[in-house]
């Protein structure tokens, strides 16, 4: 033992190894920071080139987006509106359904049921988004057209609905984790006061887990804002400033895939629009994330 002690404290080899491991761990952690900074840097740099041609005022206020055509307009509003509408529709599906599923799984479902439902939910999240896209276009849209005969073949409604289904697992599994983390004594306290199971889950567990549930919603929003394939396939790729989900429209992401497919020459204004659009997308996500952070901080419950 005494031998071992001197061995522990004095071996330079051991110290060097420890340093090396620490350095590797640091590099791994630092890489994520460096990559994020690099991406932001490239986005900013290339967008600067864009904003030398197009004023920020025009970018933010023009109501048309036709950068590749003769009558070129560079207003991000139609794309931003498309992104917000599809995201809105998706959230209208995912948040209620996801939350209800989470409450059921965490508070009501018997163990066996949970074991059956959870894998299916996870499977829902594992379906490739391109499959969801064609599902929206070929199955959901014709179905919706039976109810609304005037619905366009490409529309944001169908894309948004399917995107909502896609996001359900993200919302439900993170929310459920948060709810299950609520200490049992809080539930027991509630039952002791004579509350029913439903009252307990809605009035005690859900508020207690709110910060985690809000994080789940934010994750869902980020996922919906950044979703590409579903909207590119089913929503129509037509820059269209409208808040009506039955209309076709292009989202920011759909525009980026569309022009990237056409192989734009490096340095052209069309090429730079990709980065300006990308930057806008990042800012939107950032705003939601900051909002989510503030929200979770405000409502954090400490036990």
């Amino acid at each position: 033992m005494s031998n071992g002690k001197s061995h522990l404290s004095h071996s330079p080899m051991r110290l060097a190894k420890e340093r090396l491991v620490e350095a590797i761990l640091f590099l791994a952690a630092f890489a994520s920071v460096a990559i994020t900074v690099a991406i932001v840097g490239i986005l900013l740099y290339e967008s600067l080139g864009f904003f030398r041609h197009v004023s920020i005022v025009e970018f933010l206020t023009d109501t048309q987006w036709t950068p590749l055509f003769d009558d070129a307009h560079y207003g991000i509003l139609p794309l931003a509106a498309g992104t917000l509408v599809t995201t809105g529709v998706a959230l209208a599906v995912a948040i209620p359904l996801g939350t209800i599923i989470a409450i059921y799984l965490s508070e009501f479902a018997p163990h066996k049921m949970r074991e059956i439902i959870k894998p299916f939910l996870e499977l829902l999240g594992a379906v490739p988004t391109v499959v969801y896209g064609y599902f929206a276009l070929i199955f959901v849209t014709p179905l919706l057209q039976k109810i609304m005969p005037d619905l366009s073949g490409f529309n944001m409604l169908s894309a948004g609905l399917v995107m909502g289904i896609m996001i359900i697992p993200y919302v439900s599994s993170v929310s459920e984790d948060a709810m299950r983390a609520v200490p049992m004594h809080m539930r027991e306290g509630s039952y002791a006061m004579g509350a029913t199971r439903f009252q307990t889950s809605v009035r005690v567990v859900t508020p207690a887990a709110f910060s985690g549930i809000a994080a789940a919603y934010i994750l869902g929003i980020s996922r919906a804002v950044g979703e590409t394939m579903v909207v590119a396939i089913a929503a129509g790729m037509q820059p269209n400033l409208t808040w009506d989900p039955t209309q076709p429209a292009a989202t920011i992401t759909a525009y980026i895939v569309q022009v990237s497919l056409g192989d734009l020459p490096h340095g052209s204004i069309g090429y730079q629009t990709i980065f300006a659009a990308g930057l806008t997308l990042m800012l939107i996500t950032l705003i939601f994330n900051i909002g989510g952070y503030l929200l979770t901080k405000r409502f954090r419950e400490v036990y």
Partner: protein
Amino acid sequence: MRKLMIGVLLAATVIASPIGVQQVNAAGAVVKIDGSSTVYPITEAVAEEFQAATRGKVRVTIGVSGTGGGFKKFCRGETDISEASRPIMKKEMEACKKAGIQYVELPVAYDALTVVVNPQNNWIKSLTVDELKKMWEPAAQGKVTTWKQVNPAWPDVPLKLFGAGADSGTFDYFTEAVVGKAKSSRGDYTASEDDNVLVQGVSMDKSALGFFGYAYYAENAKKLKAVPIAAKAGATPVAPSIDTVKSGAYQPLARPIFIYVSAKSLEKPEVREFAEFYLKNAATLSEEVKYVPLPDKAYVMALDNLKAKKTGTGFGGIPEVGVSVEDLLKREGKH
């Protein structure tokens, strides 16, 4: 979707060939093609036959970046063959020249650029070029949004437009023929380089109108309605068909389509073989996929040009409309 189809075809060829996978891996000769989605159906048919004929020794990859997108890659030396639904343009000629890429221009067929509406559309029997212009010119952007605005006799329903994207040769040709200036179009329509997306869009929307190559219409004739086109108000409208293209009656939307082969790539035996195979089979295969074959003379002439590596274009790099079969022959003979 198409890439998937190509993949399936490739797999089929591999399975069909007696030695199978081994052969493909061992050979690894590749012919790289990209460009117009209008020419794609012919090239795909040729590639399929070619791969079967060479027993999978040569792989052919075909992209659909659009004519413009295809030329951008071609002039950077990334592809061996570029498909084009219009002749090469000045800017692209310069880009190729700068990069030292020379090319042989080979006309492979004629296409009838087809204007389509939904089968449920009961108010359109024919369209004049002027009416098309009213729908598509840049001045219509954001303003002409219903059928009634184009012609008061038509109902007041939204006008949903579907067309080729800005990188497409079909887009260049259509705008040149209809608006009067290539690339001059409104921007607020559903644009895609992939014609299947456009077919899907028009077939699902009662008040839609779109345009693309005849092959895509013929393949989906049940889901679409082709509109007869009158060159001028008062002229007899002509429906697109193989006969009306041959006779020269379908104007101004009939057009020759091409492949451009890089002179440098012609040094590779597989590219030379493929190009020759293409010309020898273009007549039968183009008809199979609903394009209009050129007269035999044209293929013989193109084959001579290919063998002699006669580079350059029979067109001046300026967009033109209404080049007849005869005219095309003369030009290809000259340059």
